[in-house]
């Protein structure tokens, strides 16, 4: 039995289907990120697990127990909300003590816990401060402290860093990972920020329009996206229609290029994904295809180039500067060519169309 299990869970609001027979398993003590664009059903999944919504059909299990109809206040799960949801008329200590008082813990125990939690989130000595006197990042940390003092089995985080600026977000990402290690509990994290997902999680669940698109480690998701939606949503990529001639040989844009993928069959239509940083530029005639530079933008770590080859425009990332108008050739090593099946079902087709 899995630690957390969604079994054919469906949910709709006002006749609009948000989740369609979702199946999802989560291992104990993992850091799972639900990643997807807004409206993909990731927050609904989290709210179902937190007990704030009831599914229309299907069951949710925690540690083998059916918790589908268990109200939020009886679940051993705590949530860090998107807008922190701190209680404005209470001090920080009272906020953190809220759950412990309900559990009727002794005052000594509560005081110890408050101290411990504030230390954990680097806000020692903030006990008697007002919520209003804190910055967004500090409020977020109090929200985390308030959730973890209850020693939940699962901590749910609903885009907790969404409102913070870039620097703070990055440092909070490291703090969350550290916290995860210290607490040793399961984290389920919702975000639409792919970089956040890649940085923190053991497992990423990519969702779109109520369906899971792919589940895997950050490396798997980035390097071997299973379909065009995942490839496009995680990082930037060139997604090209092609034909799998035979094993380890694919044809796209009129050229045949060796690759490492097998088992797609012969002469099968496929999607080819090539990451912009995997395209190598060389003298004209040296690669598998020639083109002309039509755009060059400085992005800090790299230049983002547009390379026109016939009527297809490639996106290329390189650390070298190229003049607009310069003739180049493109090359990609076989290992960096990712082949994906064309969407087979109608639903998948819809997802792909929408994404364009």
């Amino acid at each position, binding site marked *: 039995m899995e630690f957390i299990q969604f079994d054919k869970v469906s949910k709709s609001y006002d006749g609009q289907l948000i989740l369609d027979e979702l199946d999802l398993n989560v291992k104990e003590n993992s850091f799972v990120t639900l990643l997807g664009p807004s409206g993909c059903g990731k927050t609904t999944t989290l709210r179902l697990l937190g007990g704030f919504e009831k599914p229309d059909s299907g069951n949710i299990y925690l540690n083998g127990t059916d918790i589908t109809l268990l109200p939020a*206040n009886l679940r051993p799960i705590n949530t860090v909300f998107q807008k922190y949801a701190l209680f404005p*008329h209470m001090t920080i200590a009272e906020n953190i003590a809220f759950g412990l008082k309900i559990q009727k813990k002794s005052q000594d125990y509560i005081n110890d816990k408050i101290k411990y939690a504030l230390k954990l989130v680097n806000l020692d000595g903030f006990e008697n401060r007002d919520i209003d006197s804190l910055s967004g990042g500090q409020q977020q940390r109090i929200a985390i402290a308030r*959730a973890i003092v209850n020693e939940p089995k699962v901590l749910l985080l609903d885009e907790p860093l969404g409102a913070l600026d870039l620097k703070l977000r990055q440092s909070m990402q490291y703090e969350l990972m550290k916290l995860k290690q210290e607490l040793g509990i399961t984290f389920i994290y919702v975000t639409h920020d792919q970089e956040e997902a890649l940085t923190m999680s053991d497992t990423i669940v990519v969702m779109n329009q109520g369906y899971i698109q792919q589940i895997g480690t950050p490396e798997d998701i980035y390097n071997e996206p299973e379909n065009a939606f995942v490839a496009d949503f995680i990082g930037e990529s060139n997604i090209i229609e092609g034909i799998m001639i035979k094993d380890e040989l694919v044809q796209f844009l009129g050229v045949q290029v060796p690759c490492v993928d097998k088992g797609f069959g012969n002469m099968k239509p496929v999607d080819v994904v090539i990451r912009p940083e995997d395209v190598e530029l060389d003298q004209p005639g040296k690669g598998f295809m020639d083109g002309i530079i039509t755009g060059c933008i400085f992005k800090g770590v790299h230049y983002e180039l547009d390379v026109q080859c016939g009527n297809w425009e490639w996106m290329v990332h390189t650390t070298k500067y190229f003049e607009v108008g310069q003739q180049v050739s493109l090359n990609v090593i076989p290992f960096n060519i990712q082949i994906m099946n064309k969407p087979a079902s109608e639903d998948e087709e819809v997802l792909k169309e929408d994404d364009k």
Partner: protein
Amino acid sequence: MKKIKTATSAIYMAIIFLFLYAPIFVLIVLSFNDSMSRTVWGGFTLQWYANLPFNDTIMDALFTTLRITICSSLLATVLGTSAAVGIHHMKKHHAAIMLGATNIPLLNADIVTGISLMLLFTRFTSLGEFSVVLAHITFSVPYVIFNVLPRLQSMSDSCFEAAMDLGASPAYAFYKVIWPELIPGVLSGFLMAVTMSLDDFTITYFTKGAGVNTLSTMLYTELRKGIQPELYALSTLLFLLAFVMLLIINFKSRNQEVKNEN
């Protein structure tokens, strides 16, 4: 040019204040006039104020008014607060209908409300203090709703969910998390209800039945009988009471705004 502008606006303001407050000022002056005449100044006196507690008609009306005001305001506050919570959690469409219905007693002419309530009460109960209380609740509830609802709307819904998430039952979550945030709105709603109930004449007049008099209806009947300077004194006190209540409400909401801005 600028001088003319400021001068004009100052004069304009002065005229507005004159029109608004001159009648009340006349009333206040007359309440200290040591003469039964409305036109002759007979010297300063506090006699009319001193007479008030010994006037049975006035004291009777005062206590009736207080009973009605307190009962109706308290009940209207309870009803209005629950209604606001209910409306807040309705679907948008339903909430809009409810708010529209809530607006009707506010917009309806008092005399129409008064007559319709009278017709209803004579059919189902007798007219008296009880029917006046019911009538006052009817027109006070919307004021409470419109004071409480913004408090709910400014609050993040996730606070309630956060309380549930931390193990609170729905009732405990409401009491500990929602209620403390509502109190300012509930209080100003209550004060509005008190003010409205205290100075209502029309609706009370139609629903009170014989023998029951609140201060406002008593003033009306007594003034028709003839000049009694005690009534000036009483009116002055009523004006001051309403004035003070208004100041409290304004001051409270100003404080709230300042607090929200910080």
